[in-house]
């Protein structure tokens, strides 16, 4: 099943307190999402066994692993900077964990052959890490962690050092890998789009505490706290009938006979979309519109719009 439970985990630093409680089910991909300083890396370090919690306990498939040293946990980690050993080539990097586990060189070769075919890195096995691209490094790091067949795989912001185009490609690859290998994966990130795209469930972390746990849909559409609402996606606050409300850009529709009127203060071109900044009687808000319609709008002109009211929170 490969389940993980964190029960009342507490870790205190001088000016920071982490207090979390959650579980990850077998073969699930769970993201730990939060801004920097929210404690997500501390959670990862506790799960991996690099640091021990002050209080609470942790179980893997029902066995207590709270104080088990990292090397005995069988939890694979892909680090943010990949931590590929610079003194070993790709092949020996992947072989590292297998050698520790005392596999014969024949078995090692077979396993590396197999995993490098799946990850399409057979061509770079003899190279050293300075001579391969960022995307390749990531795949090697994943191969190194996966080849030992860990119960759980931890990914620590694995895309944060890459440029936008490659990120988009690799995020899809990670999703595919999850489908192929059926591993329990915990994915740490500060990027909500990555988390949305990949996760079965998301744990939103802020200031050492969990704000909400839920599917991407729940997190986006039914945020439980102000923090989650602000942190995930875009949106504006408006005041209607004296009550402050939160609206997402896609919930606002431009309509000739809409109930509200506003002035276009600015608009920016974002590729497929334009974003209009509107000053209206209910407050400042942003509206998304398809680029094709761009010609209709001018800064300073007035438009009327409506809000899909069932979305109001």
């Amino acid at each position, binding site marked *: 099943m490969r389940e993980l439970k964190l029960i009342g985990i507490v870790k205190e630093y001088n000016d*920071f307190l982490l207090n979390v409680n959650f579980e990850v089910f077998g073969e699930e991909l769970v993201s730990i999402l939060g801004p920097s300083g929210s404690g997500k*890396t501390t959670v990862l370090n506790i799960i991996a066994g690099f640091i021990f919690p002050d209080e609470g306990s942790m179980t893997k498939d029902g066995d207590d692993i709270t104080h088990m*040293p990292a090397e005995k946990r069988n939890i694979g980690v892909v680090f943010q900077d990949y931590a590929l050993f610079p003194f070993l080539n790709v092949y020996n990097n992947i072989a590292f*964990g297998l050698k*520790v586990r005392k596999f014969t060189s024949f078995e090692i070769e077979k396993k590396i052959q197999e995993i490098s075919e799946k990850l399409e890195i057979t061509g770079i096995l003899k190279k050293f890490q300075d001579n391969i691209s960022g995307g390749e490094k990531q795949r090697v790091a994943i191969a190194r962690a996966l080849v030992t067949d860990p119960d759980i795989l931890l990914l620590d912001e694995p895309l944060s050092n890459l440029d936008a185009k490659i990120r988009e490609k690799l995020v899809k690859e990670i999703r595919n890998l999850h489908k192929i290998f059926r591993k329990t994966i915990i994915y740490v990130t500060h990027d909500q789009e990555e988390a949305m795209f990949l996760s079965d469930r998301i744990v939103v972390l802020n200031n050492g505490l969990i704000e909400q746990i839920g599917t991407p849909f729940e997190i986006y559409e039914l945020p439980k706290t102000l923090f989650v609402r602000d942190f995930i996606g875009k949106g504006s606050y408006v005041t209607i009938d004296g009550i402050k409300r939160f609206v997402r850009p896609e919930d606002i529709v431009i309509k000739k006979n809409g109930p509200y009127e506003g002035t276009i203060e600015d608009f920016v071109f974002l590729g497929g979309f334009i974003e209009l900044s509107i000053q209206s009687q209910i407050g400042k808000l942003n509206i998304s519109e398809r680029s094709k319609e761009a010609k209709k709008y001018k800064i300073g002109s007035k438009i009327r719009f409506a809000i899909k009211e069932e979305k109001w929170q």
Partner: protein
Amino acid sequence: MLQPFEPDVGNPTEGRKDVQSKKNTEKTNFLILIPLIFIVIFLYYPVFNLAKNAFFDKNGFTLDYFRKVFTEPYNFRIFTFTVKEAFISALFTLIIGFPGAYIVSHYNFPGKKLIMSFSTIPFVLPSVLVSLGFIILFGRSGVINNFFSQIFQKEVDLHLIYSFSGIILVHSFYNFPVVVRIIGSSWEGISEDYIKAAKSLGASNLRVFFTVTLPMIVPSIVSSFSLVFIFCFLSFAIILILGGVQFATIEVAIYMYYNTFSDFRTGSALAIIQVLILLFFVFLYIKAENFFNKGFLKRGFINYRKWGKLSITFSSLYLIVIVALIFAPISVVVVNAFLDPYSKNLTVNNISALFLGKFSYVTSISTAKIVVNSLFFAIATVLLSVTLALIGSYFIKKRPKSKVYLLSIFMGALVISPLTIALSYALTFQRLINSEINGLFIILSHTIVAFPFVLRAILPVVESTSDTFVLAARSLGMKRLEAFLHVDLNLLKLPLISSSIFAFAISMGEFGATVMLYQVKNTTIPIALYRFLSGRHFGIAAAFGALLLVISLIAFFAIDFVNSKTRAI
């Protein structure tokens, strides 16, 4: 390379202190104290004892010995000479090195790498050997004087070395690579953008130099100046051999007080004063270096200038002089090893005399034994200093908050001269030094001398090595101790090798502490060389020098090889 410590809670290596279980931490804590204990027992305790000897005699507390230091006119001369000699040497070295720093930071040329490598040669050469080279080259009947004597058909002595200017000359030879390297790398590192910005604001080239470039390289100038000053201030063998009676540094005076006058209390007082003066200059050096390390933008890619007629003439002239200056003293030693000292005819007598022990009445032991001694002490020094520095580096890395204090304690050896260390040993461990284990104290003194240099080479690499490599190894199932062997040592391989060779070279050439401590059976190559020089056996001295040179050059090429590998990775 140095990464600032970030207390950010999102840091991937945060809370490393908690990485190990409590039981483990205690175990490592004990291990990690070893360098501290070592330094306290073999540096601070003896020096404390030395201070006690300077302040207390059989009648209790007294300042008589300090008074004696300051009232004897001879001592006043020593102080002024040491400061003057060090200051002028440093200034002259700066003047010689500055154009070199400019050339290497602004131009690229074939053979540049080679010349840069060669410039480290003086640094690995033992001072006794360099002195020998300069005597053969510039001495009374040396190559230069003979040349002029032949031209003018009469006895000519230009007084090039047994004089103040001679000392300055040798010191500059020794230290100009320091200036070229420190200022050169700082100059090279200044982002072109600053200069472009200044020019776009309308500044002329000269104005750019004085208002933009110069302020940015000033820390490196101060830092290299104080470093050279410290080295020359502590100069011992060169002064002892080339200075004669009229010139003596504080270091030489300490030796004289102990060895000639048997007045160890005044010698101790002098050593204490020397430490205080040095403290000031080391402080200056560290301040300047820290400022320099904080750094301005480091240029990733360097656009070297194009050669002009003037720059190419000037640079080639400079480089030719420099290369000649590096190789002349070395090559004359080798050549003279094969020349009869009087008739100047080719001969193998020197070499055969060396190995047949024809002159062993001078050293009292065989050449083979001397070589074995030197090698043994050097290897022991390497093992000891590198192990201590490695553990010390982890100690400092684990305690970034107390880094300043730990580093000052460890670097203390920088302000305590080899002679002071030896004198303090002689006062503290007298009975042991006069016993069978005399050699151990030679090794200990060499280790104390080498330790700060080895630590400086290893520490930044240990500090900048990401902890995630070890975490990765552990997540792949490896125990911490195994990870140290398989991961840490592999990551640190090159700095470990290069600092080992450096420690080896220091021990091979060490003279000051050894000459104070050694028993005849523990004679080293530099000591033997000194004996031959004092006996004016120049032929055999040259043969011995050539032998020492071969060993030193092997060390040099090894360092160079490792450095080239380091840059590749």
